[in-house]
């Protein structure tokens, strides 16, 4: 009887999965469309994204935003990439239990109270005093910022989910034998597998350094393996979060051959 039940459940899951995926895609698209049509309505006492940007560093900020990706959880503190319709918020070391962290799936709406901080150009919400999960969902679509590379306007999209199209892989450095390599473990090759990956990509004669952040995407992730498989000269499309460290330093989450 139990075997039959398991078989039935497995079959039902098999049939249900594609439907669920399609439903999820539809829901995501619908949500994104709906969100793009409507401005985020903030609760009382909550800042708009513009007000957040206008706040001074070290001001207390209250925001409502949607989780897009989770970087890490450590000692009951979570670091998150979040975004609403109008812009992104990087949330650093937000106190939360493991149980709460598990609930923070992409799209989850949260209200966060903390302090605005800046570290090497990266604007973030730090020293979070409270957060709560609210009703609502929004999953951002990546914004193509390829044409903004090298321009001042790029910083307007800091921490957003973005994409880069048709960029060429350049040498990131040399190996011990002096041969050019497409990526490095750590910025100078001093690391080993499992550390952050650094690789260079160019467009219109300008070269940029992108990173696979190993806490966001570890060595077993598709993107980590994809970068390890890159060859100099490859043309690739990428997605990731527009992180900042003394200049733009995207945390790449997806690499595919250029379309």
């Amino acid at each position, binding site marked *: 009887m139990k075997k039959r039940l398991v078989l039935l459940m497995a079959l039902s899951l098999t049939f249900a999965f594609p439907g669920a995926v399609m439903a999820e895609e539809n829901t995501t698209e619908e949500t994104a469309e709906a969100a793009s049509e409507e401005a985020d309505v903030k609760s009382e006492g909550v800042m708009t994204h513009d007000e957040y940007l206008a706040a001074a560093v*070290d001001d*207390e900020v209250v925001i409502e935003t949607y989780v897009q990706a989770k*970087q*890490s*959880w*450590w*000692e009951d503190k979570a*670091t998150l990439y979040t975004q609403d319709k109008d812009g992104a918020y990087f949330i*650093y070391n937000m106190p939360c239990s*493991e149980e709460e962290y598990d609930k923070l799936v992409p799209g989850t709406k949260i209200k966060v109270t903390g*302090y605005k*901080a800046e*570290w*090497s150009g990266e604007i973030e919400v730090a*020293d979070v005093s409270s957060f709560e999960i609210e009703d609502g969902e929004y999953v951002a679509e990546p914004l193509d910022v390829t044409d903004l590379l090298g321009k001042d306007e790029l910083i307007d999209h800091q921490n957003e989910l973005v994409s880069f199209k048709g960029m060429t892989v350049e040498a990131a450095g040399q190996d*011990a034998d002096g041969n050019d390599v497409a990526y490095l473990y*750590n*910025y*100078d*090759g*001093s*690391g*080993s597998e499992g*550390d952050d990956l*650094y690789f260079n990509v160019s467009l219109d004669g300008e070269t940029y350094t992108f990173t696979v952040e190993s*806490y966001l995407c570890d060595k077993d992730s598709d993107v980590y393996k994809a970068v390890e498989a890159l060859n100099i000269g490859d043309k690739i499309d990428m997605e990731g979060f527009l992180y900042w*460290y*003394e*200049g733009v*330093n995207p945390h790449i989450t997806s690499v595919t051959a250029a379309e």
Partner: protein
Amino acid sequence: MMTKKHKFPGKKLLVLALAAVLAAGLSGCHGAKEQSAFSIPEEFDTSKNYEITFWAKNDTNKTQTEIYKKAISDFEALYPNITVDLRLYTDYGKIYNDVITNIATETTPNVCITYPDHIATYLTGNDTVVPLDDLMADESYGLGGSKLEFDSVKSDEIIPQFLEECSFAGHYYALPFMRSTEVCYVNKTYVEKLGYTLPETLTWDFVWEVSEKAMEQNADGTYKINGQNVLIPFIDKSTDNMMIEMLKQKNAGYSTDSGEIQLFNDTTTDLLYTIADHVKTGAFSTFKISSYPANFLNAGQCIFAIDSTAGATWMGTHAPLVDISSDALVDFETEVMTIPQFDPENPQMISQGPSVCVFNKKDSQEVLASWLFTQYLLTNEVQTAYSETEGYVPVTSKAQESDQYQDYLSREGEDNSTYYDVKIKASKTLLENVDHTFVTPVFNGSASLRDAAGQLIENVTKSVRRKQEIDADYIDQLYSDVTSLYHLDQISASETSGKADLGPLPVESKILLVSLGAVWFFILLYLLLEKRKSRK
């Protein structure tokens, strides 16, 4: 790019692992218990193969990685039956956390770069770290031993102060590998532009005064000294060290050797008030709050940058390693000075840098193989090569006095890479001040106390920036919060250093033992009398 703030060590398993280690330690040992599991084999067995793991720390520096690899390769050539597997870290904290996690699963490395503070925690596990006293003194395989395959350093050739830093609870638990200290990298050009002349020895008063003077602004809000919108005249990389060094210079309490916490005292409070005053004007900030001092210094946005001598290659206009864009670099003269002092006649600065410890294993031959490699790291070739990668100094007089190292020092400023002047000046500052360095007491919990010392400055700095009032009530609450955060109220002097000599037994214990002895005596006496009776 340097390691980022957003990189923090470890995994959630750490908490459980640490609890497991502590539990094992508490149930398995009582202070003076010796590490009896390891005894030195008479002969190193060359007929069997040994694979040992070496967890090493580098400063995100490819050259250091290459030196480790070469040392391993050279060592393996001398001992073909030993293979050394290198695992690289760029952060002491992550090594610490991973070791603790692996103590719980009995998968510690064989050889590990570490800090003595961390070893004190490792020792709460049973027989984890090998005491090196007997190994060091062994005629065959000890320092300068007769059966070694390399020109080993002798015991008296290790700089005594550096070696003593690895001794606590009555044993040597590590060998020093490299030593560094903190220095102040100064934009001398800006100091003189502000109308000041650098004193022979930097003082706190001087640094604060110049920093405040630098805050003068033009009508458009830019700073007069650099014409930019950004200026933090004084940034300290390690607020842990900042508080520890200030307290030491003031001869104020921090902790006793046995682990009594003395951090929360009136001098600490006064120092925090002073720091708060300079945060309020914008003259001071910290690495954790603002970013790397080097980035600000090189952009002309900082005048006094306190950082390790091991960070010297990032400092200055012509630094070989730079994180900011080339168009943001500003041209200035960099002076390397001892950290600011309260009493310039009696300068004091912290001694820091990596040490190496050996973890215990069931196979004593494997431990001996680990010890041989540990010792190899102190040979001249490794010492001089590694020390030249940053503002480190070799830990042996043998390496320091070698022709190669002396030649290196004499070529200060020949280029902006190997002989980068700021780097060599940083090393020379430590070499000239070894007698003025100090370390803090090591005990189980000393690593937390160190973090707590820095947290005081970090919290005050943040609070001032957020317009909070720093008064007596604030300080009381701060001390309470930090005590709780770092569990300092759970550290007791009697629990320090897992294997510490606990001294004479308490009177109660003596009475109990005497009573037990007396009871056994009377039981035996009774049995003897009964036996006699039965014979009769």
